[in-house]
């Protein structure tokens, strides 16, 4: 389906519009998080700082360490 005269498909969409849509979708998905885990506006356009922030609020590093093999309970191993 043509989007508009001269725009054959989504590939032809002007990059400014596709960027705005992608950015809006990113903000909407972040806003679906519980309020205490939602990143501040300052980080929306800073991918690296945003990743660190999300890793921190979701304890991703801590979870990784928690899965260290030394903590495997031998009772759980057949």
């Amino acid at each position, binding site marked *: 389906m043509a989007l508009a005269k001269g725009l054959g498909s989504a*590939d032809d969409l002007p*990059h400014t519009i596709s960027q705005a849509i992608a950015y809006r979708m990113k903000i909407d998905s972040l806003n679906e998080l519980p309020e205490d885990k939602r990143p501040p506006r300052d980080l929306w356009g800073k991918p690296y700082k945003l990743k660190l922030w999300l890793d921190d609020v979701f304890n991703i590093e801590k979870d990784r360490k928690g899965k260290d093999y030394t903590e495997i309970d031998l009772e759980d191993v057949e």
Partner: protein
Amino acid sequence: MGSLSSLLRWKKTIELVDQNKKPILDADGKPKKVYMRIIGDQDLKEAYAEARVASSNKRAALRDPETNDYRMEVGIFEDASEEECVEAIRAAQAANWTQQAMSNVVRPDEVEIEAIAADPDAPTLEEQEKLDIANKEQDQKYLEEIQAYTLQKNKELEDTLSDMTLAQKRELAKGAMTNIQPLYMFMQTLTIEKVWRSCWDDPTFKIRSFDSAQDFKDTVDVIQKQLLEAYSNLEVEEDKVKN
């Protein structure tokens, strides 16, 4: 701030004129038109890739003392005056300050209606007006902090330079040129790559006006300038999209 109307404006028709502002005519004697549209993601990706190749080649040339690029743009600083050195160093440093400021200055969250309204589910008109003013003031303060950051960086640079000898400044200026010239090359190439990809000979955007960047560069200056200016007016800057 980028308005929705400027974001959604994606094409325009340009009637080409000559250096005397008279219409350029096509084979049928009609005014020659170029149909321009903002390029898509794939074209943009290719434009960036070409621009990075150009900046990388420029950087390599500027680091090789045997090249003309080195002799003309870096080597000349061996005899440069203090003012010329300072100007080059400042230009190279300032190119990074705004980006650094955007990364380092914290942008506050928007003021929410809860902070102002007695009943946030039914705010009065006056409370909504107060909210608009509060957010406008916050945006203004943020812009001022960005400016203050760049001014502070400028001052730090001035202090550093005041303690340096001319020989040290010349060395620093040579280093600055090997950073700033590739950046100029990148920007210039990116613009040309975007513009030739944006020009079409028909209103349905099926027949390209140019085959390549070189084809565009081989066109007469007066046409190049019109197309460059038209594209720059058409495209919304990325940072404005995010505001």
